[in-house]
């Protein structure tokens, strides 16, 4: 990473911290503590399951909300505050600005996820009193969640490069919802014929496949995640994010900022 991208990324991270983004950790800590203490009293034999399911779901949803709501303002806020012009008047290329913003927000989400992961494991230790070998799966699920954040951040940044914050949020959120149904879209395409089949198949491959990146229920039951899937998901998240960021750069390069 060149120094200009690094500086933009560091500033984006600092700005997110200044915007009190990490305050969500307090809410998360309260949620996990309540779950660990209360579930045993209101349900039967699912304490571990709830801690893993609730913990990972909360990590995922908190992160997605942060990625969307911070990501959509990354470019437009700089334009509104006119700080973008100061940045671009220096020897910083537009693509470096996009890349820096992307790494800054992704870094914020990784740090956020790291602290939440500590919370999940602390709650797990509280309800189980020990760790088992299958708990490694929780780390894999957390890694996949980070991959989801990387894609969502890229998408939010992409929409932010040409649209208003409100529309960017709507587009990013709907892509997240549609991406959760990517497998259903492919199944639907397989049942149709002709042009509909091609359109449905095209849409299924175009939207991000979030269903493959969600192994929460699987790891909650202690089922192993194949190492091949870890490799493929990593490659998919990287390729997809690079594609979306490239599209963002293409648009932003041509955007008239005057």
């Amino acid at each position, binding site marked *: 990473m060149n120094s200009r991208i690094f500086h933009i990324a560091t500033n984006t991270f600092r700005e997110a911290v200044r915007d009190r983004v990490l305050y969500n950790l307090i809410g998360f800590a309260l949620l996990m503590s309540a779950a660990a203490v209360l*579930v045993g009293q*209101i*349900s*039967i*034999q*699912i304490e571990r*399951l*709830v801690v893993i*399911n*609730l913990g990972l*779901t909360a990590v*995922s*949803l908190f992160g997605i909300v942060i990625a969307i709501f911070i990501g959509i303002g990354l470019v437009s806020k700089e334009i509104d505050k006119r700080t973008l012009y100061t940045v671009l008047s220096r020897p910083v290329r537009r693509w470096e600005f996009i890349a820096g913003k992307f790494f800054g927000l992704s870094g914020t989400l990784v740090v956020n996820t790291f602290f939440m992961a500590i919370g999940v494991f602390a709650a797990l230790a509280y309800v189980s009193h020990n760790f088992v070998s299958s708990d490694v799966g929780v780390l894999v699920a957390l890694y996949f969640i980070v991959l989801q954040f990387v894609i969502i951040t890229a998408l939010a940044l992409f929409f932010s490069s040409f649209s208003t914050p409100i529309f960017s949020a709507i587009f990013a959120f709907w892509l*997240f*919802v549609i991406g*959760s*149904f990517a497998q*259903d879209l492919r199944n639907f395409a397989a049942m149709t014929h002709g042009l509909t089949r091609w359109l449905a198949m095209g849409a299924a491959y175009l939207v991000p496949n*979030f*269903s493959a990146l*969600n192994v*929460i*229920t699987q790891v*909650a*039951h202690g*089922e192993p995640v194949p190492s091949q899937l870890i490799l493929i998901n990593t490659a998919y998240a990287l390729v997809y994010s690079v594609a979306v960021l490239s599209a963002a750069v293409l648009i932003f390069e041509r955007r008239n900022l005057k």
Partner: protein
Amino acid sequence: MIRSRQITAIASAVLLGSMASAALLIRSMDRARPEAITQQMLYVSSPKLLKRLSLGYEGLLADVYWTRTVQYFGTTHSRGGGNYKLLWPLLNLTTQLDPHLIPAYEFGETFLVAKPPQGAGDPEKAAELVRFGIQNNPGDWHLYYDLAFIYYDQKDYRNAAQTFLHGSQMPDAHPFLKVMAAQMAQHGGDFETARMMWNATYQTTHDKMIQANAAAHLRAIQVDDDVNALERLVQKYQERTGRFPLTFSEMIAAGVIKGIPLDPLRHPYRLEPGGVVVVSNPDDLPFLDKGLPSGYIPSVVPKLIPAN
């Protein structure tokens, strides 16, 4: 500055006062329309739709529905049982959302199979639930055990024996499943088989509630057995003296028994007119078929004394 402090104090007081009033008003509302609290319903009854609405987080949703099932069963049970109409839909939603949620099958079938008012009294649905569990968790021998228990409860000893046999072929299956299969095929309906079933349940679970339930059933079987034996001795006394004994002391004096007989909780048995043997503390011994004092009405919620 003073003005600002005054406003802060007034606003804080108004905030606290309003919130407290709102809470009191909600309690008044509850009292005014009690049916609104007890009325329970399912907003979404289709598992497929619910799974899609969960956006891939169906594991957490299944946990929520399982907790709701436990709460629903507990609330209905504590109100005296009766109508458990939401029990099956809730269990169906839970297990469709997460087909690997084993506690939902193990406890769910118990809730469904128990006779009203203790449960829904629907063994067909209980068997359907556990069969779905086996379909999705074919290697879990506990589910075969649960299904066999349902068949046994229905006196379908042939299917119970077959299910025990299937379960015994699963990896890590407990060896008693084979014994149960043979026992069921030979002596489906006798006391000894029932004792073995509950003993196996007691020994293969770590759940305190299931252990207490199994212990209560084992005590009930013991009492049934004791009462049969004691009533045979009472008959013997009657044949010898021409009348029924009024107390066990008379039987001891006659040399028919050696001491006052005790139930599994170490309380003495009692004799009622006509030589009927009964337990002295029936509330502590649920699930009894015999030995209940005349006129005794069992409690709606059985008292499960922790297993020792």
